[in-house]
């Protein structure tokens, strides 16, 4: 998340640039004069107010262009952190769409609002004291029992997860399906915002994955083997060598390391 409490010099510059773009953008909206460089413009409605923005922007950059400055409600800008969830409708379409502002391109006539957070307490638990069965899920999230299988959660998911299916897996106590099914969840919270049963799906998925990881899934063989090797001292020598290196030597080694192909 961006944090403005101790702004760095670089951030101040960004801010100035943004501010200048904002004033430009406002002028365009007011005067209707289009910038030479931008060929295609669209009109979007942010919380009910119309803004003309360049057509190739994402919702996030378009909102910044329109003058919004994000302190919260934005994070990685890469579609991973789930901080910039947005609800929108296209003109003439009754369907309520959901997306991440940083990943969704603006469209002409789009109506949108940001829903950056789903209010939900996360109960504290010690995973080592829990059982990997459906009772644990109901103990922390008894409202699971209110699911009506309407599938609204699935429709709301910007990650295209079959959310209803993993909620159903939770109700059945099928931890494998719960963990696998919710694996791509980025905790954006749109499912929970839309759920008529007021279930907090992403928290259920997270508890399910943790329980499955700890108790349900088979222990990987290679991990056990590696642990044995460590116990047997097979890496002691290499580790000692690393510890003895100076900074320069370490940096050279890091630069020359084997890398996975991109």
């Amino acid at each position, binding site marked *: 998340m961006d944090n403005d409490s101790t702004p760095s010099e670089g951030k101040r510059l960004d801010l100035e640039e943004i501010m200048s773009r904002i004033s430009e953008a406002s002028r365009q909206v007011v005067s209707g004069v289009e910038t030479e460089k931008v060929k295609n413009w669209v009109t979007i409605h942010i919380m009910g107010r119309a803004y003309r923005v360049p057509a190739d922007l994402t919702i996030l950059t378009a909102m910044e262009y329109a003058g919004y400055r994000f302190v919260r409600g934005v994070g990685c800008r890469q579609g991973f952190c789930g901080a910039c969830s947005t609800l929108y409708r296209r003109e003439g379409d009754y369907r309520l769409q959901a997306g991440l502002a940083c990943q969704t391109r603006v469209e002409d006539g789009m109506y949108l609002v940001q829903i950056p957070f789903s209010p939900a307490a996360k109960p504290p638990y010690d995973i080592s004291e829990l059982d990997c069965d459906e009772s644990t899920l109901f103990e922390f999230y008894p409202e699971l029992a209110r699911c009506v299988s309407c599938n609204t959660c699935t429709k709301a998911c910007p990650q295209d997860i079959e959310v209803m299916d993993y909620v159903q897996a939770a109700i059945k*106590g099928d931890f494998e399906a719960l963990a696998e099914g919710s694996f791509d969840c980025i905790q954006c919270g749109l499912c929970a915002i839309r759920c008529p049963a007021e279930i907090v799906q992403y928290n259920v998925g997270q508890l399910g994955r943790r329980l499955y990881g700890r108790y349900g899934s088979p222990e990987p063989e290679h991990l056990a083997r590696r642990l044995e090797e460590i116990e047997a001292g097979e890496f002691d020598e290499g580790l000692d060598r690393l510890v003895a290196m100076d900074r320069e030597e370490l940096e050279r080694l890091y630069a020359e390391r084997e890398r996975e192909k991109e």
Partner: protein
Amino acid sequence: MRIPYYPGCTLKTKADSFETSALAAAARLGVDLVELPRWNCCGAVYSLADDDLIHHVAAVRNLVRVQEMNESGLVEDELRLVTLCSMCFNTLKRSNLRMLENPEDLEKINALMDREDDYLGKVEVVHFLEILREIGFQRIGELVERPLADLRIAPYYGCMLLRPAEAGIDDPEEPSVQEELLSALGAEPVDTPYKKVCCGSYQTVRDPSAVAGLAYDILEHARSAGAEAVVTSCPLCAFNLDSRQREVREEHPSFQEIPVLYFTQLMALALGLGADRCGFHRNYVNPEPLLRHKGLIREEDHG
């Protein structure tokens, strides 16, 4: 015979002994219960308000899965959906009936489930006991390897197998299907006036002591009629009659515990499938001493 089968949530966890014993018994009878792919919770209770459609969506989705099973060839031209849990049976069957009787309701639900195939209204929801009746109790009797001789059992119906009349599988006032099954298995069915009195159902969440009171009445009447155990086809009845005996004892210290079984657990035993298929560890009141005493569980069973 391959038939689509709807387990329901509880049969995958706390009542898995019901499923394991039923699947084994069914297989012995030549019935292959094929689990519905991607089934979801049916909602457990049928929603009664006239204008409430959303609570029927869960049931209808499962009926769509039966169509899909036929399309993908998992079953052949088999639109019956078999249930074991009485609650699921009642909910699925009645939602289905409502859809058939009110095409407008179905249209709305189909529109809401826009990502699913439309439900075409051709599925028939049946209870496993109906399949057994269709096979014939005489035929089942012929397959019995270890008759439940000298075992006096009170069949408990509760509500969801019988009521309301349009959803029931038997006469709502004088049911006999479980008696016929028990007789075929060699047991002696014991009649009690409480066999169709509600166990309190979901009141167990809000008011456990009221449910314990009902359980006491039901079980005491079974015992005084000479029953040594009670059978049911509902995981909620089973919880209220079996697990709630803890609360019954707190209320009535002289109460003597009595085993409560799924009818399929006794079927599996009688068909010679062994105690391993019966999951007796799930029972709150252990039925094994009784069954061992009657010679129905023997040492040699545990290889």
